[in-house]
């Protein structure tokens, strides 16, 4: 399997009034073609920031370091023109919150045609045909009708599917989907899963799916990267991680799900400005010892295809 994306020591920090906010700390990850990696974690863990760092979508107050190698080129070193040629055409990005990602004053058809012409390089005629095909492949029953509608006439799930269609315009080999189910009904999620699965099967692309929804990640991702306070704390195949979680945070998350008894994980995530010296999960961890508080653990392999950042497994 060919390696498409390689993240080497990627860190992102923001300059704020109160100090340097270290949103992402020293992330190393590889995504091969056809692989669907779930970047999972709760609010503030840095997963969205990491996703946006890859495509350099962050504001100027953000400082990213490290290498982001995609198709042999370092995205972090590219100039504006080069990175623009990557966005949409080589790496598609599906935004959080479809209501805000779609232009409310343009019809769906107009936005779709624009994407097809810019990212897909098609002519107006070709674009029209392709747009209808794309919408039909995403289970829209009457694509021509949808193209004439404005975003506010569509439901949440339909908007999400329309966004997915726009992301498919450039038939990119890589997709980054940022919280595709955020704010959506549990039942509409099924439609979103379907549309993403279709996208992936039609384009054969690799993907990074950013989500805090464990069930969603479980359904769609084959590999998981669990993040906490800016770091990856557990990494491996989804099946192994969920069936036998190693890191105490993952065990706690799994136990806090309603169907598993809703066992409460007390406390809050640590500050991203004043990080503790040792393990960042130590003060919420039931199994923390002296070493955990003193020394910062590294991400180490604990089994085949399974890495954990925890002193218990050292």
């Amino acid at each position, binding site marked *: 399997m060919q390696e498409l994306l390689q993240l080497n020591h990627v860190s992102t920090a923001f300059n704020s009034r109160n100090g340097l906010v270290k949103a992402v700390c020293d992330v190393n990850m590889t995504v091969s073609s056809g692989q669907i990696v779930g970047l999972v974690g709760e*609010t503030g863990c840095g997963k969205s920031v990491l996703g946006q760092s890859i495509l350099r979508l962050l504001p100027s107050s953000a400082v990213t370091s490290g290498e982001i190698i995609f198709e042999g080129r370092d995205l972090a070193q590219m100039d504006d023109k080069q990175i623009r040629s990557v966005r949409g055409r080589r790496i598609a990005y599906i935004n959080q919150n479809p209501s805000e990602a779609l232009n409310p004053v343009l019809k769906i058809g107009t936005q779709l045609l624009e994407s097809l012409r810019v990212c897909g390089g098609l002519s107006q005629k070709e674009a029209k045909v392709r747009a209808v095909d794309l919408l039909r492949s995403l289970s829209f029953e009457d694509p021509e009708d949808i193209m004439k509608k404005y975003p506010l006439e569509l439901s*949440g799930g339909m908007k999400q599917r329309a966004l997915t269609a726009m992301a498919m315009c450039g038939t990119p080999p890589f997709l980054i989907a940022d919280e595709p189910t955020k704010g959506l009904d549990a039942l509409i999620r099924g439609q979103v899963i379907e549309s993403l699965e279709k996208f992936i099967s039609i384009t054969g692309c690799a993907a990074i799916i950013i989500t805090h929804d*464990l069930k969603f990640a479980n*359904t769609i991702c084959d590999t998981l990267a669990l993040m906490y306070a800016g770091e990856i704390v557990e990494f491996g195949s*989804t099946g192994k991680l969920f069936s036998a979680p190693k890191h105490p945070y993952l065990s706690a998350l799994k136990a806090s799900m309603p169907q598993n008894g809703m066992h409460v*994980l007390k406390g809050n995530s640590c500050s991203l400005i004043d990080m503790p010296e040792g393990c960042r999960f130590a003060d919420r961890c039931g199994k923390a010892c002296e070493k955990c508080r003193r020394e910062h653990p590294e991400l180490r392999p604990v089994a085949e295809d399974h890495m954990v950042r925890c002193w218990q497994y050292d």
Partner: protein
Amino acid sequence: MIEVEGLTKVYRSGVLGRDRKLALDNVSFSVNNGETLGVIGESGCGKSTLSLILCKLLNPTSGRIMLDGKDVSALNKKELKEYHKRVQIIFQNPETALDPRMKIEKCILEAIRNYKIRKRGSPEERQLLAELIDKVGLQREHLNRYCWELSGGQIQRAVLARVISLEPELLIADEPTSMLDVSVQAQILSLIKELQRKLNFSMLFISHDLDVVRAVSDRVIVINRGAVIEQGPVEDVFVNPAQEYTRNLLQTFYYENDHLNIREEG
């Protein structure tokens, strides 16, 4: 303890009110003392309309509500204020739940002062405030902050503090944890259940997340397009749904869940 009979709500819009939208269609159910009734259904099925009508923030087109056997459908101003004390609500979106211009302390105190539960500015009032924030797991420093300086979970805790200060008999929880992370959701739901045990209030729990409803409810009702199509003890409805709509609903939802269960065992 609260009974709803034939509740119907029709929204009129358009030039002469010609467009009619039936939000609730002849809804009837009851919630007993100390029990939690779950409400499930797709988006737009009328769940939120139901919650607004029950706490009298919206008037139904027809139907009646009985609280402890007394008809509360038409109340004068004084009776309405008394009603609000007995039936409280907690909303879905924590970001818009509190006035962004008021500090948390003031937000919580407002309820106490509206009903003159303690003398304004007295040490008893401060004592009550301290007890309330302790019960909901907030710290003193949170009192001095604005709602936009707090996390979603902390805001919901502040809202709960305000709600329980009135010692309501019925709490309507309209998707209180849908916008929260899974670990925070567990914290808030456990808190609500604990408060319910201590203060013995009934609860109407609305959510689109069937796992959550299953975990917190005693009985459940299923709503489709404004009408109650099934009701019963939660395990009965989830394990042996009588209606096809309910079966479809569960299947669509648990399509994801199946994967999780299989992998958990795998």
